[in-house]
């Protein structure tokens, strides 16, 4: 695709439900990141995938959060038993390499609202 694609763009759910957010990175990009942006806040790192290496999960806020990346391409971020404090925009980004010389390309985000 032309850019990083995220779905759904908006998700409203009830507290306690599970949600899945999908990210389709730019073809050929080996690095994939998930960030969380709360209202008016900065970008909080969640998880990083690089090629076939074990993901860096150091930013996941609790064990309710998990992510996987299948076939080195599409990634899914899953939030179990959602809480109101999970409400945020979840941004996915990819880059051609895992190094700092690689520009991060962001999707438009998935806005999650937990009622």
């Amino acid at each position, binding site marked *: 695709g032309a850019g990083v694609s995220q779905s759904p763009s908006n998700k409203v759910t009830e507290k306690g439900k599970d949600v899945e957010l999908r990210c389709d990175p730019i073809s050929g990009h080996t690095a994939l990141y998930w*960030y969380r942006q709360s209202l008016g806040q*900065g*970008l909080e*790192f969640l998880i990083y995938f690089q090629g076939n290496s074990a993901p860096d999960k150091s930013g996941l806020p609790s064990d309710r959060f998990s992510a996987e990346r299948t076939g080195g391409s599409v990634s899914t971020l899953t939030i179990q038993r959602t809480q109101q404090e999970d409400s945020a925009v979840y941004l996915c980004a990819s880059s051609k390499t895992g*190094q*700092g010389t690689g*520009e*991060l390309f*962001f999707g*438009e985000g998935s806005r999650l609202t937990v009622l």
Partner: protein
Amino acid sequence: QQQVKQSPQSLIVQKGGISIINCAYENTAFDYFPWYQQFPGKGPALLIAIRPDVSEKKEGRFTISFNKSAKQFSLHIMDSQPGDSATYFCAAWSGNFNKFYFGSGTKLNVKP
């Protein structure tokens, strides 16, 4: 702890003025410093970036000034335009951690 500190949180500038956003970092292992621009409802997009071996980088109306000894860098927007109104994020990269650390963002409003 916050690896990159950004200020101000918000900024109002008149059209034609200079917008200045500052960032400071602690970790000397950082070796790549990009700035990202985010419009409402969109993801951030790379605006300009610098490596610590240079003190300044200019691209059009946008300039990064970098002070390695002070561990500070700043974004200057010359001749600010209403179309520049957006949220700006500074970031720092460390190969040691293999991830970007972002500042908290600055919401810029350029008044016509």
